[in-house]
């Protein structure tokens, strides 16, 4: 069962998001409450338009909620307005993103894709390169460190993307369909890896997914429907 004594990494309270006004108003999220603890791996499920991506974007400080409170890693960052001026720096320090299509920069090799976020965070080029090589080796793609993204297989590219997401040791990893481009075997490997990393780094992982093959790898499953967190399906483990 879930151990609620663990530190809360993501906490959102009464968060709502609507687009448009009057007759054109669409409520994407309605008064959502959510807590995700350190080491937890949770999935956001739901049909298209249910608000999964909107929720992910709000946690990722990419879009503004219409109201509510958002707290990340113990820091209140939104209370009916953003409390931090530099949201990009906040993302750089606290959040790692994993994309459906890995989104590696095509003009940087695997190592440099990982090293870039480290340099953006202030590491020297040498420190960034060393840490990137170490991470790639840990994710078992060290032999592809100098390869350009176009020459990586889907699984290798996704591991490099994970290495990039983990580079600054973020406390929150947001993943958008992280296994959509992988076969079931590789999807399982990636999810096991994410679970391992979440446990080791005391980070939480929030993933949007439609991939039923990997649902057993999540600690909790949230079903979003019509902008509401309708149901906690349960602790899948």
């Amino acid at each position: 069962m879930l151990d609620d004594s663990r530190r809360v990494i993501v906490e959102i309270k009464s968060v709502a998001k609507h687009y448009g006004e009057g007759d054109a108003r669409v409520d994407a999220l309605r008064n959502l409450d959510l807590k995700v603890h350190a080491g937890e791996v949770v999935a956001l499920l739901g049909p298209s338009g249910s608000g999964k991506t909107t929720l992910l974007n709000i946690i990722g400080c990419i879009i503004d909620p219409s109201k509510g409170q958002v707290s990340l890693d113990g820091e209140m960052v939104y209370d009916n307005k953003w409390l931090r001026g530099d949201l990009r720096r906040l993302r750089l320090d606290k959040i790692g993103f994993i994309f459906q299509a890995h989104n590696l920069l095509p003009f940087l090799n695997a190592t440099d894709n990982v090293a870039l976020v480290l340099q953006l965070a202030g590491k020297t080029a040498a420190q960034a390169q060393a840490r990137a090589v170490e991470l790639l080796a840990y994710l078992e793609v060290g032999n592809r460190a100098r390869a350009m993204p176009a020459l990586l297989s889907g699984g290798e590219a996704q591991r490099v993307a994970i290495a990039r997401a983990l580079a600054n040791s973020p406390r929150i990893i947001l993943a958008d369909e992280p296994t959509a481009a992988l076969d079931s075997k590789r999807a399982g490997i990636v999810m096991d890896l994410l679970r391992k990393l979440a446990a080791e780094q005391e980070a939480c992982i929030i993933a949007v997914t439609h991939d039923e093959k990997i649902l057993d790898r999540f600690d909790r499953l949230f079903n979003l429907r019509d902008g509401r967190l309708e149901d906690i399906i349960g602790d899948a483990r």
Partner: protein
Amino acid sequence: MNLAFRDVRHNLFRFLLTCLGLGLLMTVVLAMMGIYNGLVADALNIVKAPQADLWVVEADTQGPFAEASQVPNATRDAVARLYGVTQAGSITYQTVEAPFEGATMRLYVIGYERGRLGGPQTITEGRGLQASHFEMVADSKTGLTPGETLMLGRNRFAVVGLVRDTMNSGGDPAVFLTLADAQVLQTQLAPPAARVQAARGGTAPGGATVAALIARLDPSVDPRSVAQTVRQWKHLSALTQAEQEDILIQSVVDKARKQIGLFLGILLTVSAVVIALIIYTMTMEKLKQIATLKLIGAPDRVIIGLIVQQSVALGAVGLTLGLGLILLVKDYFPRRVLLEPVNALALTGIILVVCVLASGLGVRAALKVDPATALGG
């Protein structure tokens, strides 16, 4: 980590191809600048060549370059005796067409008195005129070489020397003849016409007039005061060297200069639009990557640097290619292409400004990109 350099290296072939296109455009811009300069320089060269301080011309005319001017040759001695005049010479100018190796060559004939003002200043090959008749010194643009001969009117002239960059405002290369030969060429009729003239009892037009008299003055003398003295002779007018140059620029080459200047302006505008379009397209192709950069926390300066640095690199490489290309081909242009370092510097400044302004469009598009675009899959 320089993202602009990495992106260029990743798409090197496409980048170089774009630079080549831009370089060709820069070649045309530089060629127009060179032609513009050449036009003015050629026009001034011909008037500066005699190294005169004063031009004595027919009354109420603007001198031999702007309109026809006839001055009695004998007046040269009177001018030479004016206070402050150290040297004086007679000079004629005319444009002729001469057959050479199956084609027609258009030449600007300058007649001068050997040992007096008006002759070629620097002989680059061969020697100056020594014989009284039938020798010529030609501009190298004629393609003639010392030892070759050329029919001018009814006489054959031997090329004895070459000069460079001496041509009229129309770009016709100059040849220097003795004054006597030039006057004969100017007035001699074709044999049938001469016979008709003789049958009518007329006399052949004589060689008693020249286009202008030129004088060099003592440095302590004000050319304007000497010119004023000459104007007291009612049949003559006088222009200082500066006035002669002004007339040439203002009235003779002004329209051509404006035409080329306007064309140059249009070319620069087209270049600016092309650069802006290239940079904008390059940025639009990278929007997803820019969204990813924003999402992973890259500050705006990193994104702006990526676009502006690529834009400036594109302009710099294009300009370098353009400069190299024009330096390679400029001597093959029919008119002189005169490039000064200041032209390259001015164009570098213009291209730099254009690149930075053009990248503004791309930067604007990049800064508006929603980082959520990267999450869209």
